[in-house]
């Protein structure tokens, strides 16, 4: 029986991948390590105690006593030099200078200092007998999907689809070119389409493991769920993987050395790492940048993944981001085929 060349090429791709321990780590292990580290670092533990200081001079004990019982504040009485240093380095959020008129010394651009300003003033005024005219009551809720980890996991998934899509194709193609293996294949009756298709097939084979590992870990460790359908999530990840395969093919289409392709990869990926809302919302970037940011394939992919995982959107509502992802992939494939250097 004759082996089909597409099957053999795909098997070769897969073998070369899973026999490379480093590649296994970067594709499967790294996103999980990243999710774990960031999930722990940014877990929602509420605002911690705010550290404030009172300058050691006459009247300090009265102020310190007023602040001592305020919830969420920890108070220290410090000498002038120490106080100045701690304020400058952010170890205390605010410094109270006692006197006839109290002075609050703080950096108004820091959120913590702003909060300290409100809480300290509240405590001081109440201690001096301020009465609140309205009775209020606190009701604390935690919405599922509102935590940082819920935002982060779809972003990591998107970033991983980009990274493994680009590296998987780019590295193998350029390595085959530098080792003259591509030229050797050209000396056989092998069909070029089979060669290129083998990258897509081997990518899809590993894609499911890759997605399941990260989503499963996030669910097990942080209770991050998928609100939308698993079918929609699968569709989007496959589309994203294929699109970045196309981009990888384009990046690798001409490069003759590993160094050149690595540079190109980073050139393509770096803007998306920063701009596409993987680790923080791209809404933070100025309005004028928004059309550019939204046109990036990773931005569109991340939006679609978040819509399905966090909001439970159906695919029908994700036309725009999915069209952007598809367009990037399709255009890259077409151009790559035109300019591909086969030797």
């Amino acid at each position, binding site marked *: 029986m*004759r*082996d*089909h*060349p597409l*099957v*053999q*090429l795909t*098997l*070769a791709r897969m*073998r*070369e991948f899973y*026999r*490379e321990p480093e590649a296994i780590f970067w594709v499967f292990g790294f996103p999980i390590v990243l999710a774990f580290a960031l999930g722990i670092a940014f877990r929602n533990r509420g605002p911690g105690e705010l550290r404030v200081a009172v300058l050691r001079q006459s009247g300090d004990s009265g102020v310190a006593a007023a602040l001592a019982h305020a919830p969420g504040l920890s108070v220290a009485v410090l000498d002038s030099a120490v106080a100045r240093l701690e304020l400058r380095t952010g170890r205390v959020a605010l410094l109270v200078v006692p006197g006839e008129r109290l002075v609050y010394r703080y950096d108004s651009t820091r959120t913590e200092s702003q909060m300290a300003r409100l809480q300290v003033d509240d405590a001081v005024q109440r201690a001096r007998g301020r009465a609140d005219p309205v009775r209020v009551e606190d009701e604390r809720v935690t919405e599922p999907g509102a935590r940082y980890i819920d935002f982060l996991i779809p972003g990591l998934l998107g970033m991983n689809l980009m990274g493994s899509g680009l590296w998987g194709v780019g590295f193998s193609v350029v390595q085959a070119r530098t*080792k*003259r*293996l591509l*030229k*050797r*294949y*050209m*000396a*056989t*009756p*092998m069909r070029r389409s089979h060669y290129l298709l083998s990258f897509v097939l081997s990518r899809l084979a590993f894609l499911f493991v890759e997605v399941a590992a990260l989503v499963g870990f996030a669910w097990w460790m942080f209770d991050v769920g998928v609100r939308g359908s698993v079918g929609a999530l699968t569709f989007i990840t496959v589309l994203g993987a294929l699109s970045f395969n196309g981009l990888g093919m384009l990046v690798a289409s001409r490069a003759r050395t590993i160094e050149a392709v690595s540079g190109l990869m980073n050139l393509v990926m770096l803007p998306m790492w920063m701009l596409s809302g993987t680790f923080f919302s791209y809404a933070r970037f100025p309005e004028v940048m928004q059309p550019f940011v939204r046109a990036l394939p990773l931005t569109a992919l991340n939006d679609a993944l978040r819509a399905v995982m966090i909001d439970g959107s159906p695919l029908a509502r994700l036309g725009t981001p999915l069209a952007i992802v598809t367009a990037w992939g399709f255009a890259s494939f077409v151009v790559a085929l035109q300019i591909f250097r086969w*030797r």
Partner: protein
Amino acid sequence: MPAIRCTGLVKRYGDVLAVAGLDLAVTAGECFGLLGPNGAGKTTTIEILEGLTPPDAGDVEILGLHWTGGAETRALRERLGIQLQDTQLADKLTVEETVRLFRSFYRSSHTVDEVLALVELEEKRASWVGKLSGGQKQRLAVACALVSRPELLFLDEPTTGLDPQSRRQLWDVIGRFRAAGGTILLTTHYMEEAERLCDRVAIMDHGKIIALGTPGSLIASLGAEHVVEFALADGAAHAPGVDELAALAGVRAVRPAPDRTALTVAEVHRAVPALLALLERRGAELSLLATHHATLEDVFVTLTGRQLRDA
């Protein structure tokens, strides 16, 4: 119909004329060698014939077909076995997986077992390519070329950089293919390889063929079968002149070189005593005296004035 026929091949890389108008015809069933120093244009020529490099000018006909692209090219590729000079096969695949991959590209082919037996790599079938020795890698490269049961085998410097034992093993593989009726075009810069394997050789220099024939006829064209080389202990002080040497009994040609002088001679038993007598008269002292049968290397040196290896 010749297996390979090309006329007026020209290939230029920038200012360098790699192939400068080359005509060649290789008969089916023969082993033909392109012999020449590095940079002579051997690899460019063989890659043009293999349809991998388009020539700037000239016609190529392989097994009666042409590199026109499309169906004719594919049909031709099915019938050729090609080993390229600098291919590195994937390190992380096993020998068997590599052969199976190449095998899958062809419509008719040897089984994996057959081809591993041909190159005597059966016991390495489960080893990663990256773990093979240089000679084993090269035999695997030839296995990938043989897997298609080719009619015509192209080998570009198949034994360069191999130790003598690996080289002999590969010569056996090539010899068996030749004995089974296959046609071979190989390039080499080892004259003993060309003499041992090839029915005919073309000596290339600067993109041109400067001599063509059987190894025996090329050596015979020197007009003498032996080479006597000598060097003097005190350098040029007492060295005899070229005219004096040429006049010695049985000497056909004199090639002076900085480190040694070579005489092409028909009869060693007459030339050597005459040489010793001449040196004795001039008071020169020998530091080296050696004789060998004339080789293709001597043909090359005679034609170009340069050594093959450092040309």
